[in-house]
Every structure is written in structure tokens, then in C-alpha cells.
């Protein structure tokens, strides 16, 4: 990244940006220090311990990244993850995020703590909308939130925090598939499935906030093995490059949620930055799949990668 060559403080034309770190740098130039502290890059160590085993002479001319999740078709295995209160990053907040996600054909996960009413956001998320809420001790409140989101057009409800009893109650009430987010162990995965979750997000994000350690990619293989296809396994946490996404898929995830990359795009450019962030990740994933000889997601498997000791 040769940001150093650029005039200090310049916000480059969005089409010049080549990776999500550069989008991050533009966001840093645009926002105040306190906001940037929320967006600063995560540790790369976990991803740097994983390399590819590229297979050659495989025809990949029909390169296809599409997949089906909970009955809906997705353009690529990349969703815009939930982020609360996006007015912190852009005056148009979630509306602009939804426009950018739609332009990149990516499904948007809308936080229950959005700055804008979700009924206004969903129609703009033309590639699909999911809803995310924090499970409350008051189960009726969670159920009401989920029902409202489903009524507005959200296809899936992601639940974070709470307990398994609250999750089971939400599963019964939501009227849409419920995905448990924040799973970091096989025991958690089993409990979530036991409570009726139809999907998991292996995620280091807890109610205390992100740990910054990218532990999700490290625990993902064991959880994916234990789940063994019973429910959809998704993952988030520190995915900044298309190669990171390919690693997540190889280690058992059906799709990856990214948040910081599109949020940085939102902060620096609005919808155009969100679109650029998602398209960079999609394109780099496709390029890395071509390099590994994988023409579609089904061709990706554990032996696409090697995990190293250091």
C-alpha cells in the first residue's frame, strides 16, 4: 500500500482503491479519532497462519460464486454484517449502506439498533435483508422486534447474546429462520442447534465487543466438523481480503459476514464506498478461487488450505 506517496489528507477517487485497507485509510482521513478507534485494522496473525494449496489446469471459465442460504439465492458468499447506529459513520446512515450493498448485490444484515427505522432500510436492500437483534431478558420484546423485522421483509433473524432459553423462545416466535451469532465452541454450537437455531455465526464478537484476536477463523474448523451440515455455519471476524474469505469457506463456512470494510467505505464515500468494498472482496475471492482451481463454492474443501503452526 503506497498511501505514503499520496498527498496527506487526500480522499482518492473510489475507483482507485485496490483493497479494504486503503478504504480504511480513506475512512481514517474522514472521521474523528474516536470513530476511527472503532474501525482500526485487526490483527492478521490467524490468517497469516493459513496458506493455499493451489491446484492447476482446472477449467474455471464458468466461475460461479452463487449460493443458496435459507432458500434465498446469493450472488456471492459475502454479506454485509450487522453494525449498530450507522449515523456515526455517514449522515444517511443505514439508507446509504443499503444502497451500497444492493449495488454490490450483497445481502444486508440490519441491526436492531439502527439509526433509521428498518421499514425504511429494507426496501433499499434490494439484494436481500436480514435482521440482527440482541436477545433481551424480556423474551416478548425480542419476539416483537423479530416479528416486526420479518413483516418488513427481513428473511433471516440473527440473534446475539442472551441464553439458550431465550433463543429457543425466539425460534418459536420469529416466523423466519433464526441464526445464533457469537458461537466460539462446539458446546455452544450444540446448544444453539438444540435450541432450534437453523444457522450459526462463528464469531468472536461478544457483548463486551470484538476481542480483536480473530479467534473465529481458528475455532471454525472444529465447529464446522461437529455441525457436519446439520445447520448453515457462517463466520465473521477480521475478514479483510478475498483470500481471507476463501480460507473461511475452505474451513467450513457457507458464507462470511464483513462489517468493517463496508463501514469504512460508508464513512469515506457513502454507498459508492460500500459497493467498492464488497466488490473488491467478491473479485479477489473469485481471483483466488481461479488461482486455486475452484470454479464454484462446492469445489472448495478443507484441502484447499493448509494451517501452519506459526
Amino acid at each position, binding site marked *: 500500500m*503506497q498511501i505514503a506517496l499520496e498527498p496527506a489528507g487526500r480522499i482518492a477517487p473510489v475507483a482507485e482503491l485496490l*483493497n479494504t485497507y486503503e478504504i480504511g485509510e480513506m475512512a481514517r482521513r474522514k472521521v474523528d479519532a474516536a470513530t476511527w478507534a472503532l474501525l482500526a485494522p485487526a490483527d492478521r496473525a490467524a490468517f497469516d497462519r493459513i496458506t493455499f*494449496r493451489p491446484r*492447476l489446469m482446472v477449467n474455471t*471459465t464458468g466461475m460461479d460464486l452463487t449460493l443458496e442460504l435459507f432458500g434465498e439465492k446469493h450472488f456471492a458468499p459475502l454479506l454485509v454484517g450487522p453494525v449498530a447506529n450507522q449515523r456515526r459513520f455517514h449522515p444517511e446512515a443505514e439508507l446509504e449502506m443499503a444502497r451500497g450493498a444492493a449495488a454490490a448485490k450483497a445481502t444486508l444484515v440490519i441491526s436492531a439498533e439502527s439509526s433509521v427505522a428498518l421499514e425504511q432500510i429494507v426496501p433499499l436492500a434490494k439484494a436481500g435483508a436480514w435482521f440482527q437483534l440482541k436477545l433481551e431478558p424480556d423474551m416478548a420484546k425480542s419476539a416483537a422486534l423479530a416479528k416486526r423485522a420479518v413483516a418488513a421483509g427481513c428473511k433471516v433473524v440473527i440473534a446475539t447474546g442472551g441464553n439458550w432459553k431465550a433463543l429457543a423462545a425466539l425460534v418459536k416466535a420469529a416466523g423466519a429462520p433464526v441464526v445464533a451469532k457469537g458461537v466460539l465452541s462446539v458446546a455452544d454450537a450444540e446448544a444453539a442447534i438444540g435450541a432450534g437455531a437453523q444457522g450459526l455465526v462463528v464469531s468472536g464478537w461478544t457483548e463486551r465487543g470484538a476481542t480483536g484476536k480473530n479467534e473465529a477463523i481458528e475455532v471454525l474448523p472444529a465447529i464446522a466438523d461437529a455441525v457436519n451440515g446439520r445447520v448453515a455455519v457462517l463466520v465473521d471476524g477480521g475478514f479483510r481480503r478475498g483470500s481471507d474469505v476463501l480460507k473461511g469457506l475452505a474451513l467450513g463456512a457457507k458464507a462470511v459476514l464483513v462489517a468493517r470494510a463496508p463501514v469504512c467505505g460508508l464513512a469515506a464515500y457513502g454507498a459508492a464506498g460500500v459497493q467498492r468494498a464488497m466488490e473488491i472482496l467478491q473479485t479477489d475471492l473469485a481471483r483466488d478461487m481461479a*488461482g486455486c482451481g475452484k470454479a464454484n463454492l462446492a469445489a472448495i474443501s478443507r484441502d484447499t488450505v493448509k494451517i501452519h503452526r506459526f
Partner: protein
Amino acid sequence: MNKFEISRRRSIEALAGFLAGSPLLSGQIDPIRDHARVPGIKELLTAFEFEAVMYAKQTRAVYNYRAYGEESEFTLRRNRLAFDWVKLAENKAGTSNTGSATVDTSTEIFGTKMAFPILVSPTALHGDLDKDGEQSTHKGAAAASNTPMILSNNSSLSFDKVMSAASSPMWVQLYPKQAMDANKAYLEPAIAQGAKAVVVTVDQLATVYERSQHDRNLNATGGGRGRFGGGGPVPAGNPYRISVGRLWYEWKFFEELRTFVKVPIVIKGILTAEDAKLALEHGVDGIYVSNHGGRSLDYGPSTLEVLPEIVDAVGGKVPVLFDSGLRRGADVLKALALGANAVCLGRVPLWGLGSYGVTGVTRVLEIMQAEFVQAMLQTGCTRLSAINRKIVLANFP
């Protein structure tokens, strides 16, 4: 790569920037005599030092195109790291190889006789670095104990022009073309003019040099490639915006090539045992372990760490060549110890060519050869057949 990561190049730049502003340094250097002084060729002692001279003498875009790697350059860095994961074992046998012993480094691959197990890798467009382009490289290589040269498919000059410039053996490299007639039209004249083998590069499928693209954004010339493609505009009908020009590759290409190529065929870019076995099944005569000098797939493995599994899979049936990341004679020995029959050098001769032309190529190759001999002596090997895995301690992560 994020801005918190460290690369050698960035470290050098940072140190140079610090020193340039330091009163300590300006107090020691005579500003008249040493200002922008380029060292004489004989002052350079390692291949690394040629890179700095080449950097100083060439335009930024010409240097960058050759120095940079794919995307975040993880693999570019790992290629160098991997040589640190392999140590040369101490020569405990004490086999008297400390001075007067003669060392035989000669070998032969596909009938090509070599004084050292070292060839020049195919690299593009030497005309950017030297007015006589690949002719200068060939002359320089020939003067370094007749080092063989593999001419790039993207050479600045035609095969016959380069071949006629000097006497060292030449092979020819090919990027597969989907129309077999195009491969024929390119290879048949080269083989008729003396190419002893054909090296088919099968990696770099949709590669982009992220950092070179910055040159394009900053309006520098040369080197840059399209963000969303490996060499041209985004093809219509590709929803994911990658270049599709090479995605058609299939193994049957080698059988088709064989119908008119009668010299040995080498596959370049192999990084797994599985692909090495498939390559043998499809009739190749040589396996060339390469990650294109970190220019093909970011987060691919270093070549050294996968060399043993490939050598085991090949089982001695065909020669194994090796490149990506070599800068020292000891690196050459490590690759041979892990089973390579010979190594190829891409950037090393380019640093020589871009710094001092013909003599730079010769000198930098001679340095690698001399270091290789020293490393052999250090481990008690006086001939190539004595080199095996016992002379190294490998600790790959």
C-alpha cells in the same frame, strides 16, 4: 498488506528516510564526493546489493513491476522467510573439504550441460532495463560459465535474436494459448533455432499486481495492470470482474502440445504433490516448482516448504526445477538438498542487468555460483550427488 506489516523493502525505505534526515549521517559524509555515488560493480558482494543499484538506476515503474508481488505480497515475503526455516547442518564428518578440495558442480538436464545447477528463469521485457534487452542477459549469462537461459514468452526480442547473441544453451517459455496454432507458430521456430526444452507456465491465472496498479493510478508509465484483470479490460459477461483469458487451462493441453513438440516439456508453477503426479500422468518431462516469485497467488505457499512433498511424489522419474526467492548460494544448496535437480533465478539476473548491463548479469551469477561452492564446502559436499536431505535441518511451520 496493512500498514502495520513490515517488509524488507519498506524497512529499507524507512531506514533510508530516517538516515537522510539524520544530522549524524550528514556529519559523516562528504557531500561533494559521495553525493548520489553509485558503487562500482566490484564493490558489490551479494545479490541483494544489486537490487539497490538497479533501484537507483531505473525508473520507479520499471523497478516496481519486477520487485512487486501479488496482492498483499504475503507469498513474496514468505519465499524469503522459508530459506530461514532450513539450516545447513554442520559438517561434522570433517571431510577435509576446507581449501584445496575441488568441487564438481556440473550437471546435465535434458542434454543441456551446465557448469552449475543454475539457470536463468524466464522474465519479461528486458528491453525496459537495457537497450539490448535479452541479448545482454544472454551474453551476461554465457560469460558466467555458460549459464543456460530460459527465454520468456514476453521477451522484448525474438528467440533467434537472443539465441544469436551468445553461446549458452537456451530453452523457451510458453504461456498457453487456447488456439493451438498460436502455440505452434511461436514454438516451432524457437525449437528449430535451438531451444532445447519448452517450459510451460500454468500459474498466474487472474493475477493482479496491486502495488504496480498504484503506479498507474499515479500516472506512471509501464508495468501497471488493470485492477480487475490480469492484462486487459474486464471481459463482458464475467460477473465477478476477473480476467478470464487463462481460465480455460486443462490437463489435455499437454497431450495436444506433445503432438508437435519433440523436445522435453517442463510444467512451471507446480505447488502440490497431487498436481506433480497429474503432470506426470499427462506426459511432462520435467516439474518446475514455482510460485512465479510471489507474483501468482497471494497466500500461496513458499516454494521451499512444498518442495519435499513434490520431490517425493515425482520419485526421481523426471528432473525437478525450482525457483522463487533465491538470493544466496546457500539458498541454492538448500533447494538441492530438499530434492531439486537445479534452480532458476528470475530477479537476481534482472538486478544485475538493470544495474550494470551485461557485466552485471555475469557478476551477480558468478556471486551466486561462488557462494554455492562455499556452501557445498561448508557442508562437506564436493559433488552434486553428495547433496541430500541430511545436510539440512528443515523446520517448516
